């Protein structure tokens, strides 16, 4: 081994504490990136494979009812490759021993052969037997939530008629990877399920014999999706079609895409922040480390080593550290990635399998960024050290020029002992270095705040949504639009405190070339239960004659301002196309909506007082009885109970939050400790001689620790408020990056977030201080007298 390489290994060993701390910083950044990107890759690959293997359709349309021969006309349309018709029925379900309302969706399976499209992946049991009358296959989320096994039974209210069903299998469908009840905010596996049964049996129960009410199709090669949609709509308009839509709008897929997009954002934003901070720290730490080796560089030069050889020596040194960090980061990230993918699989998406992938490209990117950060920091310092003439480099560094600090110059010096002055002057002597240290520590604080931000944000969003805007205990939908008189009957039910009707109309909203498929929601102008909120989250009355749009819908999707005229293409009844003015903007964190006054909407639809559902305030304790009463009413199609929805949401999201908090705490902790410990260790190297001299002069270990740790403490304390600013800034980036149709995050940090940020810094500092204390105990006093530097 060459002497220089031996020096390399010995240096690495000598600096092992710092090497580990630097590697920890790199590990933190790399692990976040690998975790997010590998999860993204895995879920995307899995989705694509699942969609392909199980023939997920490309265009979907629901209609009121069409006789089967219409299917042939549709199949013959240009651009259609494969087409399948189905019967689709919204049902109420009864599960023995479970009193909450359950809504379900029953879909038909062909009685002969495999489904052409949207095939099922059977998890357990078998498919329904041809021509069976009561056999169903359950979606696995619903089956798992209620622990259904093949052979169990449940009942469904189909079209007002109760039908006993036997479970024969449990399956996953590409159409329902993400399952959520219509009108609900979150998935609730216990209270919403998808079921499949034989076409014949379902048609018989739902009065759809020889007819269909749902069509799925795939596109021929080269066909244009919008053209096919237009042709399909032209045919089905006469049969009550509610407008065909592509995969982009298909609910499960849309949510899946949205979630993946978000994951991709996470995979870029988070690692960018983490790796960026890590790179910055690496740069700071390494340049100081190299600066300490100045005399050694001078000696190597005096021996006749070339710049390149010296540069290569130090590059090797830092690359070894970087590689150590990258290897640990990739391992940890892959582990976290598998964990995260599994959390997704258990809580959100149902895929039959998971292709976990860790792309070599991801590893190379991580290695590249880390190596670049490490090497650039090093070369800069090496270049500076190499530029010194050897003689000058070897001479003991001139005692540095210090001066009295500002606080002393303004006359406060008599309050400070010599050690305190040393602290203050040392900080003021190198303002840039002190500033960078503060910034580094602040970054760790900020990262911690970002990592723990979600919980508070979600609490806030849920609070706004359910305690300010949608305050009803129960939302129920009628089978079809109904006279407002139905509300009186509901109000008379036992346990009902208050009833508020609403009218919703499926529609496409258009402005210029922007469009959005949504429902127009007619609510009560001065509603007590369901309200629209202004920008300061105060309830405001919806004005008559126009729509009020969610801020995100208005600004980001439709690009309209109050005063603009919106084109509304109603997808119900006579399907009128209307011009409706935008009258205002409402603040909403979850979902997007278009609100009107119910009366205005009724007028637009040229109908009398008509409602499609109702919001109910329910007396606590009377829920079970009320649910049973409502369940019996044939005109009530589905119900969503808010409290149950929130609870199930928290049960789902809880695992995510736990996971993210754990990961963030671990990574921010690693980075925080890495920075603080390195700063402290470098300070010790820079000042070890000075401190040892003081020890020789009779200072106790505690007294010199005060000088060293006092500086660290001062910088740490200064870093906390800066860290708060960094944290708010990083959360701001996140809020902007994560805006989407399903939710917008509030820029809101709770006291706990700040506390966590401060805690990671303080704990890192205490731990570093402890380690440093032991180092100070081992300070070599004799060596100080012998050597010059």
């Amino acid at each position, binding site marked *: 081994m060459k002497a220089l390489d031996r020096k390399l290994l010995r240096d690495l060993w000598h600096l092992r504490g710092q090497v580990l701390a630097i590697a920890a910083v790199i590990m933190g950044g790399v692990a976040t990136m690998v975790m997010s990107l590998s999860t993204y890759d895995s879920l995307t690959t899995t989705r694509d494979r699942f969609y392909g293997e199980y023939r997920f359709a490309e265009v979907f349309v629901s209609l009121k009812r069409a006789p089967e021969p219409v299917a042939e006309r549709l199949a013959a349309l240009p651009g259609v490759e494969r087409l399948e018709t189905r019967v689709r029925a919204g049902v109420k379900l009864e599960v023995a021993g479970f009193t909450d309302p359950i809504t379900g969706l029953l879909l038909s399976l062909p009685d002969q052969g495999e489904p052409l499209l949207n095939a099922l992946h059977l998890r357990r049991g078998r498919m329904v037997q041809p021509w069976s009358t009561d056999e169903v296959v359950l979606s696995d989320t619903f089956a798992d939530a209620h622990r259904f096994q093949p052979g169990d039974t449940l009942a469904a209210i189909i079209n007002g008629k109760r039908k006993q069903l036997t479970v024969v299998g449990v399956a996953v469908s590409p159409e329902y990877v993400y399952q959520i009840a219509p009108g609900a905010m979150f998935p609730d596996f216990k209270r919403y399920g998808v079921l499949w049964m034989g076409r014949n049996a379902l048609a018989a129960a739902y009065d759809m014999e020889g007819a269909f009410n749902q069509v799925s199709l795939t596109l021929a090669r080269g066909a244009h999706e919008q053209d096919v949609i237009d042709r399909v709509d032209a045919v089905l308009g006469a049969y009550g079609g509610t407008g065909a839509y592509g995969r982009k709008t298909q609910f499960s897929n849309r949510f899946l895409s949205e979630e993946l997009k978000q994951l991709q954002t996470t995979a870029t934003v988070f690692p960018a922040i983490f790796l960026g901070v890590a790179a910055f720290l690496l740069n700071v730490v390494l340049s100081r480390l190299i600066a300490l080796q100045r005399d050694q560089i001078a000696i190597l030069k005096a021996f006749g080593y070339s710049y390149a050889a010296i540069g290569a020596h130090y590059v090797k040194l830092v690359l070894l550290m970087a590689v150590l960090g990258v290897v640990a980061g990739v391992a940890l990230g892959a582990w976290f990635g598998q964990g995260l993918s599994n959390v997704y699989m258990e809580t959100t998406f149902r895929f039959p399998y998971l292709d976990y992938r860790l792309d070599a490209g991801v590893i190379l990117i991580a290695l590249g960024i880390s190596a670049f950060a490490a090497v650039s920091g090093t070369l800069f310092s090496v270049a500076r050290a190499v530029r010194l003439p050897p003689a000058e480099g070897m001479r003991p560094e001139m*005692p540095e020029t210090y001066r009295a600090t500002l606080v002393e110059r303004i006359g406060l010096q008599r309050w400070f002992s010599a050690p305190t002055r*040393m602290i203050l002057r040392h900080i003021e002597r190198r303002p840039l270095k002190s500033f960078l240290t503060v910034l580094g520590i602040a970054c760790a604080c900020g990262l911690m705040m970002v990592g723990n931000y979600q919980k508070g944000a979600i609490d806030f969003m849920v609070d706004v949504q359910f305690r300010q805007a949608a305050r009803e205990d129960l939302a129920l939908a009628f089978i079809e639009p109904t006279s407002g008189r139905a509300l009186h009957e509901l109000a008379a039910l036992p346990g009902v405190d208050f009833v508020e009707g609403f009218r919703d109309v499926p529609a496409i909203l258009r402005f210029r070339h922007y469009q959005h498929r949504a429902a127009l929601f007619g609510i009560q102008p001065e509603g007590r239960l369901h309200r629209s909120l202004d920008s300061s989250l105060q309830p405001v009355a919806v004005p008559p004659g126009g729509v009020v749009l969610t801020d995100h819908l208005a600004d980001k999707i439709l690009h309209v301002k109050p005063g603009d005229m919106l084109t509304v293409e109603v997808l119900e009844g006579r399907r009128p196309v209307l011009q409706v003015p935008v009258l205002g903007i409402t603040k909403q964190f979850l979902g997007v909506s278009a609100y009107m006054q119910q009366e205005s909407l009724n007028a637009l639809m040229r109908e009398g007082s008509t409602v499609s559902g109702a919001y109910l305030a329910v007396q606590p304790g009377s829920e079970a009885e009320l649910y049973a009463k409502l369940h019996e009413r044939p005109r009530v199609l589905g119900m969503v109970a808010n409290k149950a929805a929130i609870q199930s949401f928290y049960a789902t999201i809880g695992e995510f939050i736990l996971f993210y908090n754990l990961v963030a705490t671990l990574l921010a902790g690693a980075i925080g400790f890495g920075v603080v410990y390195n700063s402290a260790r470098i300070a010790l190297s820079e000042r070890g001689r000075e401190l040892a001299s003081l020890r020789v002069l009779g200072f106790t270990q505690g007294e010199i620790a005060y000088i060293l740790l006092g500086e660290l403490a001062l910088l740490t304390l200064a870093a906390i408020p800066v860290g708060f600013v960094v944290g708010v800034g990083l959360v701001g980036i996140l809020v902007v990056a994560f805006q989407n149709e399903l939710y917008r995050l509030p820029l809101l940090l709770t006291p706990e977030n700040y506390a966590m940020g401060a805690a990671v810094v303080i704990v890192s500092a205490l731990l570093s201080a402890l380690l440093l204390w032991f180092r100070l105990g081992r300070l070599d006093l004799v060596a100080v007298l012998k050597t010059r530097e």
Partner: protein
Amino acid sequence: MRPAYTHGVYTVSISRGIMNRMPPDPANAIFVARGLTKIYRMGEVAVHALRGIDLILNRGELVVLLGPSGSGKSTLLNILGGLDAPSGGEVRYLDHMLTGASEAELTRFRREHVGFVFQFYNLIPSLTARENVAAVTEISKSPMRPEDALALVGLGSRLDHFPAQLSGGEQQRVAIARAVAKNPAVLLCDEPTGALDSATGVVVLEVLEKVNRELGTLTVLITHNAGIADMADRVIRLSDGRIAEIHANTAKKRASELSW
């Protein structure tokens, strides 16, 4: 109260004939070392830095330690100053036993009784001359005023200069002022003129001489320079970890008369 065995040391030493040149004055003894050995173990190899040193150092003496490089001078000085522990034998400082003392006791010993002067000054760069001295006086019991200590070394007019603004000789004088400001009983100097030219070195030695004379501080001075030995009361010559010779100087010279 002096325990009886100090006399024992004395008797043993006399009988060995090593200390026959030392003034037999146990009442004035500040350091009494007996059978000091120091072995550095580095893996398989053992370096015998000290191989059995018996020595008494008295109040007010100016002692010069001479000897070839590696003979153990610094090792001996460090043990006397409580910076290092011997491998064998024992050292007493007045009635304190230094051997076997805890780290905290040694720290207190250095803090209260010993002044160190190093070859490379070891001033705190972030403190002015006055503050470098104050750093020590702040933690001692009955110190001089830093200004007085600096006046003693002839730097009364450079109080507020930082080390970077002083020459090497001036820095070394600040170091001496820092060492004597706490009124130590002992001043230990390891090659204090090693990094200085002859003229500046003489100035520094004059200061040490003055401190020794005016404050009566026992001063031990390591040097490679036989010429400096002329200013000592006694010259101790070390060789290979043993005392080769102790020589009482009858014709002591003033520092200003020295040159090399």
